[in-house]
């Protein structure tokens, strides 16, 4: 059984009965090996389709999940998708086991994973009978940019849940095990905000998610803000870490800002050293976020993505047939219709009309790097999503969510096609665009390979750039 991966959360979906005799068979060694190579932050087992489980079976699953931690110690492990009765049983099994987290649903787990969207308007209702859990959940959600509303009693929880106030998600029957070791990440506008606390020393290299950072650079984020209001002190290792980060981002035209750092226990000279390296300092987060001029200049506002100065390389052009093949065969598979190639040329992107179009993009890096952009007429997007959604949907949020999965499938296929030829790449989190004007504007000056395809008379555009 292979894990389904979405938003850097891997989930296994066993079905039926899990006990000591069969648990090991659900996660074979090959599955563990494959999972260990995935770039994920959380690895969960869904109990949605499990009707029976016992302690032996669960212990074996936890120990098998633990194997994946050997290659990535920052992965959080746990279970999701259960009802009240299963939660009570699981709490009996794992209440004292800090290596296991429990999430009522996979959607709840997603709240604690990395995000590329601005969550500040999303109200999350939180309840746990255990005050320490309630606090831990609330803090984690806040660190991820959500607006958590914690309730102190079950009565208050029931009342709030039934109230007219709409909640983006309700977090109850949830238990965080070892969590919060990573730096909290949230998105505001087009800026990524990292929240750090405690002492910033050599451990930064362990707790900072460099893959996520690189993903964000690759898909066009250029402003990275470190909220250091809760930082006690930074030493020279911390300074080195930020210097390296600033140098690595320079290639992408990225800026790093530090806000809220107190210099009571951190030498003021460190600020000067970091400023020399191009890092900006602000007293408060609002000083930066509310300053439209600076935000525009740094690329932190939505639609203000900086233009990349990179151009296509011969290696990428040589691999073009693989990119097109992966896209066409996946789209044909998902729509069950044949594609006709209309044209292919190296050019600046040209789209007939931006109306009624949706787009998704995904970055790749490794032996070659670049960005693949897919522009769908809404009709093709709906058809392509039908297989994954199971119904014809016209809800933009559903379509965009499914397009993100769709572009992931294409990138996954591409990754394996290139691997067969000895070219190794990693892929970023996908991004989707409800309106393509901003996207087109941001890449309008860049040359890339544009391939126009038609599916049942509708034009679909593939654009490969750097």
């Amino acid at each position, binding site marked *: 059984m*292979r894990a*389904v991966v979405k938003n850097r959360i891997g989930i296994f979906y066993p*079905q039926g*009965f899990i006990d000591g005799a069969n648990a090991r068979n659900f996660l074979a060694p090959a599955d563990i090996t494959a999972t260990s190579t995935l770039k994920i932050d959380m690895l969960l087992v869904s109990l*949605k389709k499990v009707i029976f489980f*016992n302690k032996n079976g669960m212990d074996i699953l936890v120990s098998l999940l633990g194997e994946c931690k050997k290659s990535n110690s920052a992965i959080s492990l746990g279970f999701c998708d259960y009802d009240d009765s299963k939660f009570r049983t699981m709490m009996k099994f794992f209440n004292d086991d800090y290596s296991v987290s429990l999430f009522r649903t996979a959607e709840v787990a997603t709240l604690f994973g990395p995000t590329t969207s601005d969550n500040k308007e999303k109200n999350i209702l939180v309840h746990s009978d255990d005050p320490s859990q309630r606090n831990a959940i609330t803090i984690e959600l806040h660190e991820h940019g959500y607006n958590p509303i914690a309730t102190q009693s079950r009565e208050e929880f029931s009342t709030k849940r039934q109230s007219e106030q709409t909640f983006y998600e309700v977090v109850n029957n949830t238990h965080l095990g070892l969590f919060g070791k990573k730096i909290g990440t949230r998105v505001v506008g087009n800026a990524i905000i990292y929240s750090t606390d405690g002492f910033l020393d050599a451990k930064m290299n362990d707790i900072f998610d460099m893959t996520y950072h690189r993903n964000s650079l690759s898909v066009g984020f250029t402003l990275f803000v470190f909220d250091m209001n809760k930082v006690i002190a930074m030493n020279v290792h911390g300074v080195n870490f930020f210097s390296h980060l600033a140098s690595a981002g320079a290639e992408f035209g990225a800026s790093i800002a530090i806000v809220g750092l107190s210099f009571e226990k951190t030498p003021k000279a460190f600020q000067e050293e970091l400023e020399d390296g191009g890092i900006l300092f602000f007293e408060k987060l609002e000083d930066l976020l509310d300053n439209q001029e600076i935000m525009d200049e740094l690329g932190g506002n939505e639609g203000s993505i900086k233009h990349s100065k990179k151009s296509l390389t011969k290696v990428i052009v040589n691999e073009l047939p693989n990119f097109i093949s992966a896209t066409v065969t996946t789209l044909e*598979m998902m729509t069950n219709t044949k594609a006709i190639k209309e044209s292919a040329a190296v050019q600046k992107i040209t789209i007939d009309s931006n109306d009624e179009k949706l787009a998704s993009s995904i970055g790749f890096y490794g032996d070659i790097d670049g960005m693949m952009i897919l522009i769908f007429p809404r009709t093709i997007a709906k058809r392509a999503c039908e*297989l994954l959604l*199971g119904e014809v949907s016209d809800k933009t949020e559903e379509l965009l969510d499914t397009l993100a999965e769709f572009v992931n*499938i294409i990138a996954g296929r591409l990754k394996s096609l290139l691997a067969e030829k000895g070219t190794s790449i990693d892929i970023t989190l996908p991004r989707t665009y409800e309106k393509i004007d901003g996207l087109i504007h941001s890449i309008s000056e860049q040359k890339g390979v544009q391939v126009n395809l038609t599916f049942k008379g509708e034009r679909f555009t593939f654009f490969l750039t750097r």
Partner: protein
Amino acid sequence: MVTAKELATYIESIPPAPKVLQDTIAILDSGDLVKASLKAQEDKALTHYLRTLVNRPIYGFTNEVKDLKQIFGILGLSNAKQILCNYFLHLIVPKKWELFSITNTIFEDLQALLNVNWNLLLTNENIDNKDVSSSIALLPASIIVCEAIFASKKKEVELIRSVKNIDLNTILKRLSSMDLFDVATQIAKKWEMPDNIGEILQCASGIKPSEDEQTLKLGKYMHLLFFYTLSNPKCAGTGLNDFLEFQPDFIADVYENFASVIGVEQ
């Protein structure tokens, strides 16, 4: 990826039931076990299959049973027909499994496990009906159909399943408007099996509940038994467990009884 036309071609390619098998079943239906065993002996492959299957440990015979008359006598009318129906699937079982990590021996073990536990459930429900007893035999046809349709599309299926937890039955339904159980039912018709076998089979998919109370209950038991069997250590790592979506809500009201009859530890 898969079209309705491809499915029609696949169903067309299914061979008709051999004459000896059809005649043996007809004789069994008339209630003559001895005459049926003599008829079955005319087909050497069928004879070999019956001997091998019945002598599996799950059937519990302490000494090897070789004589077909003896085999039919021990099994009785219902069970004999059930095992003959198993043989239908033997005709279309792939030589090499590509999609699922199983062998034909594991597949036959799976058939045997289903048969024995199905009989326990029917006994508990006081149902003594040859057709109902035989209906379990066609359930694994859905596995064979799935293998035949998706074996050459393994990579595509894996890619889809790497981003979305979606079972193969659902993928097929969304692509072609027919699911694995529709195809299996068409095969049953081609083999001139009784209609109620197809009805129970459709209900056992867990997504097409029957309006008939008994068929609905049997469909629930069959759905649950299928997943209980697929959770067996021999099957759990084969990929069989996730080709169809388990429907816990569908079987919720029969679970306690099922667990007690089959002996699921609580």
